[in-house]
């Protein structure tokens, strides 16, 4: 009893393994996985991911929230189960490729007999040509022509008859392997990026230096090993107010010594020390100075203009309260420079309103309901009228700083995918047979062919081959 059990065990394991192999090698699994990936990907486009998820999650029922959270639906594309699904597809792809390789290799390497007659069954008169030379001479010429356009040419002679075979495009069987390899390469490149790369950002004020960036995923700082100085940031606008160009003038420094200067623009990243920098955003800071004009409309008009600092209270000229500048923006809603004033009257509620530098232009651009709101009214506190005559702010540039060693592999994968698809879809294996049959003093030449796809292309190639043969005989007689 014991003996048979131990004999059966490897057998059972073998059977289990082969059934797993069979499962993994089925195209049904491929299609199920492709469709499954497509369906779950939809979920991630409907539920906001990452940072956007916070706002969405607030409005969810607690039970619903727990459910989403457990399934990691707020960061779905990074969730282990999603990656597992992709890994499964990769495994399926590898197993399928291995499984099918022997038959593909056979199709590629098998050389059919030159004297097959089946391909000639559907011959038309166009595939036939009567040559006025003897059969040996004719077959030498035919062989030469066949060899000039086809590979693997071999022949067979039987009596007065010569049989030839030649083919082209037999490598096209491997196009599909190239495509599948490319998918694996892209996945490997993606994995390499997530293991050995990082995505970080840094904001640098004009004139200041940064030697660290902040990793987006963990929000932890990372030492660059060199320094980046933002010498200047500039932004251009079109007349319509849409942005035209963002530009940072950067200096890269090692140990405080300038090594290289670069202009960084959107779509034109700059690489230094293995880190690639991208122009991602910009802004201006509000802790500097503004110049305000304050008019008091009354019987005795008072007018004063002074430079004020941010977040410091100043008394109103008429003594009705105090005001302070709580926010300064170089550009708000594409309406140009503005400051936010917090006015605290001695009696009544404090009020906040924006004062624009180009108020006349703002009046034209801002929709009437917004214009009517006290938030945008420089005369919100009667009888005063505030005007912004000057604003001193400093720009900062927002840089994306990435390292991704997987990128070249991904690009290689993309290149292979396109070439592989091209081969798979548009190239075919064309097998050609030519027979030269002796007829008295002359010879009868016939061509025929088969193909795995694209029969129209085969007909064209047959015509072409026949024309070449005929031309050869007309030339040489």
């Amino acid at each position, binding site marked *: 009893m014991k003996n048979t059990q131990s004999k059966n065990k490897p057998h059972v394991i073998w059977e289990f393994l082969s059934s797993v192999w069979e499962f993994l090698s089925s*195209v*049904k699994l*491929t*299609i199920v996985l*492709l*469709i499954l*990936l*497509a369906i779950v*990907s*939809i979920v*991630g*486009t*409907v539920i*906001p*991911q990452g940072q*956007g998820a916070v706002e969405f999650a607030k409005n969810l029922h607690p039970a619903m929230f727990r459910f989403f959270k457990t399934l990691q639906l707020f960061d779905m*594309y990074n969730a282990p189960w999603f990656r597992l699904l992709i890994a499964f597809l990769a495994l399926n792809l590898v197993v399928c490729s291995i499984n099918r390789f022997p038959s593909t290799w056979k199709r590629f390497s098998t050389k059919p007999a030159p004297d097959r007659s089946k391909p000639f069954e559907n011959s038309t008169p166009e595939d036939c040509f009567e040559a006025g030379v003897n059969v040996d001479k004719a077959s030498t010429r035919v062989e030469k022509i066949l060899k000039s356009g086809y590979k693997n040419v071999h022949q067979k002679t039987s009596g007065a008859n010569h049989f030839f075979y030649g083919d082209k495009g037999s490598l096209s069987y491997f196009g599909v392997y190239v495509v599948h390899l490319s998918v694996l390469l892209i996945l490997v490149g*993606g994995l390499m990026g997530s293991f050995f790369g990082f*995505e970080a950002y840094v904001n640098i004020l004009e004139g200041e230096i940064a030697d660290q960036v902040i990793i987006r995923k963990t929000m932890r700082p990372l030492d660059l090993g060199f320094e980046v100085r933002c010498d200047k940031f500039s932004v251009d606008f*079109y007349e*319509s107010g*849409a*942005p*035209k*160009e*963002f530009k940072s003038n950067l200096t890269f420094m090692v140990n405080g010594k300038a090594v290289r200067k670069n202009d960084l*623009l*959107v*779509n*034109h*990243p700059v690489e230094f020390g293995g880190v*690639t920098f*991208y*122009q*991602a955003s910009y802004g201006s800071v509000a802790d500097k100075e503004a110049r305000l004009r304050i008019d008091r409309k009354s019987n005795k008009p008072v007018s004063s203009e002074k430079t004020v600092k941010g977040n410091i209270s100043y008394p109103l000229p008429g003594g009705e309260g105090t005001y302070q500048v709580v926010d300064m923006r170089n550009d708000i809603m594409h309406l140009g420079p503005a400051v936010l004033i917090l006015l605290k009257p001695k009696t009544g509620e404090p009020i906040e309103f924006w004062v624009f530098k180009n108020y006349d232009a703002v009046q034209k651009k801002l929709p009437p309901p917004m214009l009517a709101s006290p938030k945008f009214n420089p005369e919100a506190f009667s009888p005063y009228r505030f005007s912004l005559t000057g604003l001193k702010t400093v720009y900062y540039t927002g840089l*994306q700083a*990435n390292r*991704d060693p997987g*990128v070249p592999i*991904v*690009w290689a994968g*993309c290149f292979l*995918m*396109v070439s592989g*698809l*091209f081969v798979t*879809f548009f190239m075919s294996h064309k097998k050609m047979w030519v027979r030269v049959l002796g007829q008295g003093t002359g010879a009868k030449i016939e061509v025929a062919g088969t193909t795995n796809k694209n029969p129209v292309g085969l007909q064209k190639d047959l015509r072409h081959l026949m024309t070449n043969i005929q031309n050869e005989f007309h030339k040489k007689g």
Partner: protein
Amino acid sequence: MNNSLILSYTTFVYFLAFMAYLLGMVMNRAFFSRLGTYLSLLGFTAQTLAIILRWVESYKMGIGHAPLSNLYESLVFFSWTLMLLYLILEWRTKNRTIGTFVTPLAFLAMAYASFSPNISSQIQPLIPALKSNWLISHVITCFFGYAAFALSFGVSIMYLLKRLDTAEKDNRFLRLIPSTAILDDLNYQMIVIGFLMLTLGIITGSVWAHSAWGTYWSWDPKETWSLITWLVYASVIHTRLVKGWKGKKIAILSIVGFACVLFTYFGVNYLAGLHSYAKK
């Protein structure tokens, strides 16, 4: 003459072409079908001129760029690629019935571009993110892909209609549709071209995203939906090449695939994402 005015006329001409193709089929008159071809050619020529004019105009305004930068321009380009592929197909197959199923799509795209109140036909300057050499190759590959899928959709509808045709029914309209074998073959060819173009479109988009944002893939809804579309057509190709599916099944899958294309094109505009400039 103003380019958007010519484009409005084009919309009208494409509608007339559709009516002519339809009449040709319903009344079984070759005259109307031929008229449909002439009208299609007229509309296509006018549209080509208008696109060139628009391109020149943008340079005259000092903000020169290829007219492929917003929803209006993309819709115009979509119908242009669709008509181009269709006219090639009509010339190759010598069959005009496909026009009845394709010209309405070109007309609808143009009508949406011309008459929707949310779509501005103004030439707008390029924002910094769009100032890239990849803009042209990305948009062209994507839209040729969309156009090929649209043709495959039209052919699939024809396939499903043709299946209703029987000898005893003797329906003129159905009889004029090419045989199911031809349609099935055409359908597969269009899917293959569309798939190759979509692959190129996703790749060029990735290369561009990599230089603009620093990542070649960020799971933005438009990216994700293009991947979903790619996965659907990848399964169609696998079912056909490996499992040998044909005919009705492929036609239905192709219609599902085109629904994904439409969602990638329009639907994602209702979801937040990075492709916001393609919304208006």
